[in-house]
């Protein structure tokens, strides 16, 4: 009886699972195609005969080529460093501003909230022409500090917006209790409210980090020289040029370079989803 019920249910949802499977395949196929291309030898990459969905002689040769690229690990380090510094700057400044907007009553708090939202809406690619000039005036054009200084511009509005939403949902009583017990205002905030808001702060940090990892225009426009490149523009310049794209190493680069973001995502899927459903990302 129950088994019959189960099979009937399963048969009824068969079209659903079929459709779901098709949707998953369509959305994930590019990643699979990139991965198996990276595992094929040069000749096989351009040979679609037989079953092209499985590499005939899987090999890590493309990854070796990639890691032997003279500056790959420098680019990786640059990207890690810039993303970490950018995330630290953005999160610290945004925690302060987000807290003020959400929890403190001062003249102009509402206006500040609106301004943050407006700056959040401004597309990040809008101001790179004057920013390049300003960086040049300051003598920063060309090196990594140019990126550490400009990346937070687009992240602070978003993180502040996200965090002010978070702070306004964190209860205020524990902070007040701590102050009754003799803690200073700032001490109460740092020791009581910030730990309670850690999930929101982590969300902001993850988004800042992945956005920095993913950035392209500023890294193309603001840094010079092989030693200062990010992974994005470094990989592009190393393996593409005119019509002679080295697809094997390029796909290996796409796979490896996405790994840190993929790992972060794996560990913090729920943070990503809640951040996204807060309506908090651009695209």
């Amino acid at each position: 009886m129950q088994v019959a019920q189960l099979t009937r249910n399963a048969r009824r949802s068969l079209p659903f699972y079929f459709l779901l499977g098709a949707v998953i395949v369509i959305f994930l196929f590019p990643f699979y195609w990139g991965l198996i291309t990276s595992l094929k030898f040069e000749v096989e990459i351009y040979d679609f005969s037989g079953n092209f969905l499985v590499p005939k002689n899987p090999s890590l040769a493309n990854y070796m080529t990639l890691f032997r690229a003279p500056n790959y690990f420098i680019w990786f380090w640059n990207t890690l460093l810039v993303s970490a510094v950018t995330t630290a700057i953005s999160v610290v400044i945004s925690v302060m501003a987000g807290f003020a907007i959400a929890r403190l009553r001062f003249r102009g708090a509402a206006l500040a909230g609106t301004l943050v939202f407006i700056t959040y809406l401004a597309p990040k690619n809008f101001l790179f022409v004057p920013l390049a000039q300003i960086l040049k005036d300051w003598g920063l054009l060309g090196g990594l500090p140019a990126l550490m200084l400009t990346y937070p511009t687009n992240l602070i509005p978003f993180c502040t917006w996200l965090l002010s939403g978070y702070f306004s949902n964190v209860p205020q009583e524990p902070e007040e209790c701590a102050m009754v017990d003799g803690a200073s205002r700032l001490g109460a905030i740092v020791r009581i409210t910030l730990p309670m808001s850690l999930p929101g702060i982590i969300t902001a940090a993850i988004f800042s980090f992945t956005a920095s990892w993913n950035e392209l225009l500023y890294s193309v426009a603001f840094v010079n020289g092989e030693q200062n490149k990010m992974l994005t523009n470094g990989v592009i310049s190393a393996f593409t040029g005119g019509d002679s794209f080295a697809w094997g190493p390029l796909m290996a680069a796409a796979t490896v370079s996405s790994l840190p973001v993929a790992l972060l995502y794996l560990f913090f899927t729920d943070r990503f989803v809640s951040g996204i459903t807060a309506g908090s990302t651009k695209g």
Partner: protein
Amino acid sequence: MQVTPRVQPRTSGAFISRLLHKDSSLGYILIGPAFLFLAVMMAYPFAYAMYLSFTDKQIGAPASFTGFENYAKLLGTSLFSKTVVNSLVYTTCALVLKCFGGLALAALLNRPFIGARIVKALLLLPWIMPTVFSTMIWSWIFHPTFSIVNDVLVNRLGLIAQPIPFLRDERWAMASLIFVNVWRGIPFFGITFLAAIQSVSTEVIEASKIDGASAWVSFWKITFPAILPVIIIVMLISTIGTLGDFDLPFLLTRGGPNDSTTLFALTAYTLSMSSGLIGLGAAVTMTMFPALILLVVISLISVRRQQQD
């Protein structure tokens, strides 16, 4: 700023702790760094862009004021008119497809099923993965001679006789760009819409089903109006992002063939970075500004309205 306390404190330590205690002073202190940062890195560059757009500034040369010459020059070039048309086509098509695709995805996922969490996590990957690297994979998929899609369509399935020139033909190039943007965007739209749908009270929907409404009717009559504010905000934010897109045209086509896929950011980049015409490049970004203001104002109004409900 009103940070001066009424009673003069005896020591500077006491003064500082007072500043850090009162809402009014602490508020300004905490918001100060963000305000300063955005003033220097956003407001100042904006003013600077406006200034540059009125000059003949080139790389390595001093700027001199030329009035509206850059804007007049832009209006006379086909590069600029193509940029405007491309951006309109790209943004409109991508947004419509992302909206309907996202609704369809949300409708599909809006039921309990085995592995729901994993499926949702997997489907978000196109959105999460760094655009630069996923777009590299797409440019391999769209390869002029070794495209896997063409191989399947021409050789395996025999559906078409000639391979599709994905990035080599003007119309196909734009279509391919839109396709990749939509591929990235639908998961984000879908998951956001799904969260909105699942926050709609199920009682009303159940009641309408008892009254004989089909799932299709109850979706459009009850669920859709309820999630409309979320749809509008997601659409507006995405419109701004899509209009300012640089990565996709830069990586897939470099704006070609024949400027058929260049968008505002890439045109500004080509003019200012590749050709060194900084004044002209700044003018291109400034021409985006009126449309942006309009979008920002509409966004503000719709967010306000949602907060009031």
